[in-house]
């Protein structure tokens, strides 16, 4: 019985071991060596890379990345919550097509979709062009190559994850508890604050962690929409490997990022598990 199960797990385990666990281990180990003179690796043990990672210069990049990612989370929530609520309130047969529409952007390449934002946001782009034609502005708005553009790109790219996570939480809730709250005299705002919001926290947590993790490590969007002026954690790691050719330091940064993601994902999983067991007990 157990050996049978192991056999079934074997391909998956082998895949994960070969392509995830071993590379992660390598990256971790790499962080403890020195950089070679010509960009190679000098196999002398050191903790200097970790000390360097907390240097104000790099810590600043880390904080900036976290701020951008958090902003993306907040806007994804503000857009995703009403959208998910609206989908969950539709008749059952209309929900699936709407969810497929939400997923539709994934059918095309992330890079291409990000390029498309340049067309929309640049000085002569669609938005500035339209606003100028309408006479709303005389000078084009600085929409591209700044934090606004980066956040816009990230929110655009990852809001579907937020909607899906929230949808699964909201649709599970059903309309009955909100009705009970209304029946007891609460208006819709208080029903939202006291009933719907607390009970959909698992969905909020899941969606937020997804968007945060995907955003903080992203290097395509800051590159294209930030115009390369601002460096995020993803760009920094990219540069260490490909430009500075400092693999050990790049590996250290990559390891720290993965560790942060793991911590967040674990917290979120524990949170979801806790509310799920509570729900089971309820049913």
């Amino acid at each position, binding site marked *: 019985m157990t050996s049978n199960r192991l056999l079934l797990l074997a391909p998956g385990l082998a895949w994960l071991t070969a392509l995830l666990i071993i590379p992660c281990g390598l990256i971790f180990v790499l962080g403890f060596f020195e950089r070679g003179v010509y960009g190679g690796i000098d196999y002398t043990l050191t903790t200097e890379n970790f000390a360097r990672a907390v240097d104000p210069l790099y810590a600043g990049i880390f904080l900036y990345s976290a701020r951008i990612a958090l902003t993306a989370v907040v806007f994804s929530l503000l857009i995703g919550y009403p959208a998910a609520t609206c989908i969950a309130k539709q008749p059952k047969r209309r929900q699936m097509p709407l969810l497929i529409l939400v997923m539709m952007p994934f059918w095309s390449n992330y890079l291409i979709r990000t390029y498309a934002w340049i067309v929309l946001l640049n000085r002569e782009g669609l938005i500035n062009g339209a606003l100028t034609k309408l006479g709303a502005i005389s000078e084009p708005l600085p929409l591209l190559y700044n934090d606004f553009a980066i956040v816009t790109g990230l929110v655009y790219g990852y809001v579907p994850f937020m909607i899906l996570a929230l949808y699964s939480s909201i649709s599970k809730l059903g309309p*009955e508890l909100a009705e009970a709250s*209304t029946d*007891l*005299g*609460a208006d819709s705002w*208080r029903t939202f604050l006291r009933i719907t919001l*607390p009970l959909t926290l698992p969905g909020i947590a899941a969606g937020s962690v997804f968007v945060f993790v995907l955003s903080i490590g992203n290097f395509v969007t800051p590159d294209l929409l930030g115009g390369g002026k601002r460096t995020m954690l993803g760009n920094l790691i990219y540069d260490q490997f490909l430009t500075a050719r400092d693999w050990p330091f790049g590996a250290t940064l990559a390891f720290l990022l993965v560790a942060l993601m793991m911590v967040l994902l674990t917290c979120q999983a524990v949170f979801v598990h806790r509310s799920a067991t509570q*729900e089971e007990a*309820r049913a």
Partner: protein
Amino acid sequence: MSALLEIAGVAKSFGTIRAVDGIDLAVAPNEFFALLGPSGCGKTTLLRLIAGFEHPDRGTIRLDGADITATPPNKRPINLMFQSYALFPHMTVFANVAYGLEMEGLRGAALKARVEQALGLVQLSDQASRKPHQLSGGQKQRVALARALVKRPKLLLLDEPLGALDKKLREKMQIELKRLQQETGIAFLVVTHDQEEALTMADRIALLDHGKVAQLGRPRDLYERPESRFVADFVGQMNFFEGHRRGSGFAVAGLGLLPAQDLDAVPEGTAASLAVRPERVVLSDTAQPGAFAAEVVGSAYMGQDLVVHLALAGSGLPLVARLPASHRLAADIERGRQVHCSWAAEHARLLVK
């Protein structure tokens, strides 16, 4: 006595389904009123219309003389106890019960006192700090009741309040509900599909069928004087004979002329059903004038009563009789035994609808 709740010509359709199809009824203050009917007849829809979660296509709903048809649910002095209880899972029992009072702006000691009183009323004072998922079905039901009662509504709507409970607990809670209703003086409008429950608890019953009121009256009226075959069939057990009104009786093929009550109300020749309650069938082991010979085809022992299934001699028509276990014949009713059965004319009702 003026009515507390008046429903006039209320109708509600979902697409092509007429869930509620023109209902008139009135509930008096302090009344225990039951809505009874088969699954899908529109009971829940009617409650949701009264609570304000659905808006009627036509008709008006009045409470204490004021038209509340357009009033939103949170502004109606009516509370609904949901079929699934709908307790807030993230709140303790205390917080669940306090919720409605907080919405009225009540705080502090006054709030605490009201909640504790309500929990005392349903005997849950010692469970105040628990979460709903730590409670049994019967306890959840009482929390839901306390949560609705604590608001002191003018009218409490209860959707199958005992539906999820086992038989023993149900019977206990039926008495509980009746006690609570009398102690609080709040009018109760209870939905049930269990006719026995309606008969034991309610002051009056409206039996619904396909979104319409089939009959409205006291439990005794519905049981003793059903006005249609549907009512006679739904409330309690009933024997039916199909035939025609003829001469001095009711003609049934294979049985001849049977005696019946209120014969004059039905015109000669009209097709109708003759309805006789099983407990009104008299069994005897000697032939008597007007009695039919029958053979026992089976029996079911029900504790106090014995239910006997018979086949009438000649026609083979089925007949069910119910006799007390203490009856002289009850001891030796067995399959194949010949008996004679009869009933008094006043216990045989002619139903045309």
